[in-house]
């Protein structure tokens, strides 16, 4: 299993670096900071999925929870800020890039990337994992083990992108909706952690359940605060009075007509 995850992560790293290289060869710029974030995010996921922590997680709930925090919250934060979709749109030939942006605008993707959908998939998946027998079954069926980890990583990414994404998201709701969903999600995470403190998943001893739950609660806080800071920082930048007066209308940048998406800050300052 670690082998499978390792290959997937390595592929993601190679693809990103190659795409950044393509963009540069065409004479455009791609921020090294984004590449660093992407590789850092993949390395974080690798710590959770391969190596000693992953081995430990098979029989220790606290180690499993540490892995969950890294894979479902920390890695997505880094990966989302690396703006992989923007990079793909720049690196792909024009036709494929148009095809990709059509897919991004399609109804299913719009529904899937809405903060509420992403939040429900993310938090709901965790509730199902820990409050039903799935957690115990996971230890017995390798395919379920893979499925659970892919789900945690994918929904973690989807949710983070829905809240603080820097990639094209033409239909993203405004900051109020996103803030409300973020608070609701963080609350669901904290409530689940306290619930698990008293009711550990099937197959987990009581003491292990308690330390795991406390790690989920306080470790989750760390990831949450990072998410909140990025969210507020984006709001702070987008409401800069100087920039707004220069830009003209008082429309949030992500809603400006004719400019359906924004590049990450670093990308823009470097490119222009």
């Amino acid at each position: 299993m670690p082998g499978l995850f390792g290959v997937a992560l390595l592929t993601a790293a190679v693809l990103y670096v190659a795409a950044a290289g393509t963009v540069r060869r065409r004479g455009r710029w791609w921020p090294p900071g984004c590449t660093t974030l992407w590789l850092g995010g993949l390395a974080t996921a690798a710590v959770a999925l391969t190596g000693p922590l992953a081995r430990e997680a098979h029989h220790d709930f606290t180690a499993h929870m540490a892995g969950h925090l890294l894979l479902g919250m920390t890695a997505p934060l880094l990966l989302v800020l690396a703006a992989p979709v923007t990079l793909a749109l720049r690196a792909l030939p024009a036709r494929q890039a148009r095809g990709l942006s059509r897919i991004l605008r399609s109804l299913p993707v719009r529904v899937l990337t809405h903060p509420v959908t992403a939040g429900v998939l993310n938090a709901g998946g965790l509730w199902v994992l820990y409050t039903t027998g799935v957690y115990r079954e996971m230890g017995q069926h390798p395919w379920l083990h893979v499925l659970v980890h892919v789900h945690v990583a994918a929904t973690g990414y989807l949710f983070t992108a829905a809240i603080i994404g820097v990639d094209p998201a033409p239909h993203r709701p405004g900051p109020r909706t996103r803030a409300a969903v973020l608070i609701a999600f963080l609350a669901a995470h904290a409530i689940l952690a306290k619930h698990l403190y008293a009711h550990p998943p099937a197959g987990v001893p009581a003491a292990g359940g308690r330390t795991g739950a406390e790690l989920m609660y306080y470790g989750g806080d760390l990831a949450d605060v990072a998410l909140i800071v990025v969210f507020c920082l984006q709001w702070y930048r987008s409401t800069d009075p100087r920039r707004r007066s220069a830009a003209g209308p008082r429309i949030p940048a992500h809603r400006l007509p004719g400019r359906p998406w924004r590049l990450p800050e670093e990308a823009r300052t470097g490119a222009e």
Partner: protein
Amino acid sequence: MSTVPRRNMLSGVLLGVGVAGFVDETVFHQLLHWHHFYDKSTPAMGLISDGLFHAGSWFCTVGALFLVADLRRRAAFRATPWWGGLLLGAGAFQLYDGTVQHKLLGLHQIRYHVELAPYDWTWNVIAVVLIVAGAVLLVRFRRAAVSTAS
């Protein structure tokens, strides 16, 4: 109140709620170990309230500080309504925590294996004092604003 003092007050209230939540978590849960992470008698409603306020107070703290930064870059920061809001927010959270969360929802008690009444009274009287202090500041600011305007 016009927009500027209202934004200052809002930032203060948010930071007050955030700071009260933070003090509750660090001092009473982590340092003193008076509060318990989980009380066996906690009903579901208590956990939901706790989770929402826990998440909300982080958001309030960070959001309020960014609001201060926003006010300052617009040269619109006013100390009096900000402090008034802060005391009001901290007191309101403390009172909610001391009455609804501790008593009504039975989330956990202030301290265990002691006579609770003096703790509960101190807790809630401090909350009311904070609220009154915040309200006094806000009323005084408003009066001053009205008298300079007329």
